[in-house]
């Protein structure tokens, strides 16, 4: 664990992308489905998942996309990144979506489909269930 950017507690299933996400233009804000045909998560829904991805990229308005998916009840339960970026950090801060930054080693050990519990107050914030 490198940093806790937005606190919270949840548990759920990992959806992992090896590639960064440009929230504006990649995520449909009404459905939470990845709409960019070139993205590895194309057609997958991020709703109620624990979304793990290296970092956010691109448009600064992506922060509104994160706020919108939360308002539309299609947001992930939490986000886990390798690198902090301001679009994801501030989008999650306003939308109250827990966000943690983990080490490269921890990131490479996460796999889509794993069930985990995330608790930013705990001494061991991420545990496999």
């Amino acid at each position, binding site marked *: 664990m490198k940093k806790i950017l937005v606190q919270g507690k949840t548990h759920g299933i990992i959806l992992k992308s090896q590639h960064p996400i440009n929230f504006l233009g990649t995520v449909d804000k009404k459905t939470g489905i990845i709409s960019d045909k070139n993205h590895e998560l194309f057609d997958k829904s991020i709703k109620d998942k624990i979304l793990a991805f290296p970092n956010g990229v691109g448009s600064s308005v992506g922060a509104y996309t994160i706020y*919108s998916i939360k308002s539309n009840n299609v947001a992930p339960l939490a986000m886990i990144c390798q690198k902090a970026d301001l679009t994801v950090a501030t989008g999650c801060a306003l939308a109250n979506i827990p966000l943690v930054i983990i080490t490269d080693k921890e990131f490479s050990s996460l796999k889509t489909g794993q069930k985990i519990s995330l608790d930013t107050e705990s001494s061991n914030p991420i545990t496999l269930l």
Partner: protein
Amino acid sequence: MELTKDEESALKGEQGEVMQTAYRILIATGEATDAEKLIPIEWAHLSGVNYNTIGDAGEEFLSGISKNARVKVKTTLNPMGFDIDNVSNYGLDDNFISKQLSISKSYETMGVALSFSCIPYEIFDIPKEGTQVSFAESNAAIHANSFDNLKTNKESAFSALASAITGKTPYSLLRKEDSPNLTIRMKINNPNELTYGMLGFFAGKVGNNSVNISGVKDMDKRSCKALCGGMGTSGTCAKFLFGDGDPGCEKVDFDKKDMNDINDELNTAEKGDLITLGSPQLGLDEISDLTSKLKGRSFKKRCMIFCPRTVKEQARKIGYTNELERAGCEILADCCTCLTPLISKDNIDSVTTNSIKGAYYLKNSNGVDVNLKSLSQIIEDETR
């Protein structure tokens, strides 16, 4: 991060809900960028204006906070979804127009200047060297750091808004003197603005906070803007320096193959149903240059030109507008190619543009195919 007593009190909610939200966003920004304190800024430039991008949730959020929030520093604004002068020509529904006007009203109520431009660095006076600003528009943040001697993070829509309301920003790495640890060696000969857009797109993908770019000289304004636009689209990188950098810098080449890869990713059509120019919006110099390039020629298909309102007004006074309209151009102020609701896949299959940034969002957000061409190629192929 160390906070003053006043900042602590705002974070606790003792100065109202708006201030508490703003400080929560600044704290997240500070933690994300390892800042140790907050410092004052002199200018904020906000994104999150176009109803097409922020939607109902964004419109409601802004309407809510505008009841209490007021900006503390000079604050300017990104493009919105249309030009009110000619919106009736584009078949936008009434809901879109009223929601867009509500967003605009909320910003006005907060004390924001309704500049509706993604090129604040071209239409406002640049403050003195080293001034701290908060620019959310990605191309503008990169331009400010790289060409205008200003200092900004690649802000998010919310971090810039929080900075506007508090007059503060976290003292992050990009606001200090930093030196890039990566140098990109430009290996393409005779580059045009399209090549520079691709170089920027590549740099955004491989760079982190900042990069050196070597092998580049004599860029015109169009190419500078294309480089900033491309870089802002693909990555987190917010600054570049020209030169080789420290001898210890990691080196990466930008060559034919890299260019072909980007072309394969973004160029999906052989030709376009219409042409768009501007993403970033065109400044007066580019409008003037386009007018002289078009002398006597006319477009064979629709050509939409996006610029700030101040530029549209100047162009009209000087007489460029007449010339451009004669050549078949539609001139639109206050909006931009990037994320425009005026191009819909219901009636357009493909768009020709010289903008890498425009291409990315046309493809991914508007869902239309893109035909990439430099401006000189567009004029050669698409006018007579």
